[in-house]
């Protein structure tokens, strides 16, 4: 048996065995919920493995038994849930409209925000701001943040100047351009950005847990999240605890 064969076998072993992990139940899904879920898991005594993968993958992961709890940051479609999955609201993720630290405007109404995104203004001084060009920052198709923003503001089908792929890019693009305006989750806003109050507009999306009907591990974790302690942790992560329940 040559050295080459040994190396081959070793490589094969490494490749096949890395997939085999411990027996911990898995929480997977939307990246925007993961920081909050980390806090909750730690407070519940750990024992969960947390993975990303996105809202859409979460449904398949739970249905096929790869995950115990799925995280969704958009409203699930009825055909996605079927009859075998439970979907429960956990929290609201408030979105904020932001500009760079050196802001071209201090206040906007919902209508002027919509018109901005529909391309009706070219300079901030048309809205009483600085005399600088308007640069709108949007998000890529399929983003839950984009869906929430566009349906709340009423600017579906708009074509922003810049399109950020992911919330991290959005933050960099807005913070780096004093002409820009954009939207991100409130908990992602930091001191490099200025929040612009929007009059008459409730910008928030609902975050959900999904699990298989009758799964007690998932149910007890959800129950913990809905206790006052869980609500306090959600608030600490920058989310609003959900009012309604299943």
């Amino acid at each position, binding site marked *: 048996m040559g050295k080459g064969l040994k190396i081959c076998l070793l490589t094969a072993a490494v490749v096949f065995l890395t997939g085999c992990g411990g027996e911990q139940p898995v929480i997977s899904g939307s990246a925007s919920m993961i920081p909050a879920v980390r806090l909750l898991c730690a407070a519940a005594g750990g024992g969960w493995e947390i993975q990303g993968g996105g809202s859409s993958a979460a449904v398949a992961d739970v249905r096929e038994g790869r995950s115990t709890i799925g995280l969704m940051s958009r409203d699930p479609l009825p055909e996605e849930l079927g009859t075998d999955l439970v979907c429960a609201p956990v929290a609201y993720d408030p979105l904020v409209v932001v500009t760079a630290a050196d802001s071209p405007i201090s206040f906007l109404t919902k209508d002027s925000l919509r018109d901005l995104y529909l391309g009706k203004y070219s300079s901030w001084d048309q809205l009483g701001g600085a005399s600088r060009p308007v640069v709108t920052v*949007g998000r*890529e198709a*399929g983003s839950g943040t984009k869906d929430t923003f566009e349906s709340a503001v009423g600017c579906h089908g708009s074509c922003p100047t*810049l399109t950020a*792929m992911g919330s991290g*890019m959005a933050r960099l693009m807005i913070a*780096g*351009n004093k*002409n820009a305006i954009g939207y991100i989750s409130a908990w992602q806003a930091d001191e490099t950005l200025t929040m612009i109050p929007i009059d008459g507009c409730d910008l928030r999306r609902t975050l959900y847990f999904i699990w298989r009907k009758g799964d007690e591990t998932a149910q007890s974790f959800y129950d913990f999240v809905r206790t006052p302690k869980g609500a306090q942790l959600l608030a600490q992560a920058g989310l609003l605890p959900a009012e309604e329940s299943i």
Partner: protein
Amino acid sequence: MNRFRFTSRCRLAAVLFLVPAVLALLLLFEGAFPALTQEGIRLILGTHWAPDGDPAAFGMLPMICTTVAGGGCSLLLAYGCSVLIALWAGGRKPTRRWASLHFLLEVSAAVPSVVWSYFFLTAVAPAIQSATGLPVGTHFLTAILLLTVMVLPSLTSLLLSALDRLPEDLTMGGLALGVPRLTVVSALLLPAARGELRTALLLSFGRIIGETTAVLMVSGGTVSFPSFFAPVRFLSAAIGGELPYATGLHQSALLAAAVLLLILALPAAFGKEGRP
């Protein structure tokens, strides 16, 4: 180990590599199939990209033009710069300055693309913005400059080593005839290294076409036809940015875009010619 056993092991390794590669290709085509059959020619001739629109539209022509034009421009720029560097460095005795140039090139060739991209996004784009007085600094031109900076080191390295490997007689003979060094390089050395230069260019083209992080960060991201100061989106950036969220026909259209990228990169795989 005798020669026979070595060759047979090489064959085994080739098969072990080929099977997953072919499987990956099949999976890619399988994923792209719904979009290819339902959208057909509209995928590459359509000009409107709105996967979440009503009705959804999957026209990739603006992104295809961006990728091809951006790749072409940055390759041309990188080619020009590397030839200039070769004119300066070719046919010289390996001095310390020459060695430090080589070192610099190899170090910058090893810089990960995300580092260059972050530097361009946070430093170069704002500088371009204030220099041009435009509303944004992340546009087609910034992406071209970034891609050029990313392929230039490896392209120049390959070119310089090719010149290095040429027989010394070529340089010596030329210089002995009293031909200026610049003419020796441009009229003798560069033509002699033509084949390797071509290979290096094709490899760089392949890298430019496939580059995702860089163009995702500095090109502005909005789908439109390429124009130097307009925010644009490259095909690879669309795939990298939207695939994590995409489902159904949207996902399939992105995989069709991946097939398209593969086709665009084919010249890099098959266009090499043997040494002259």
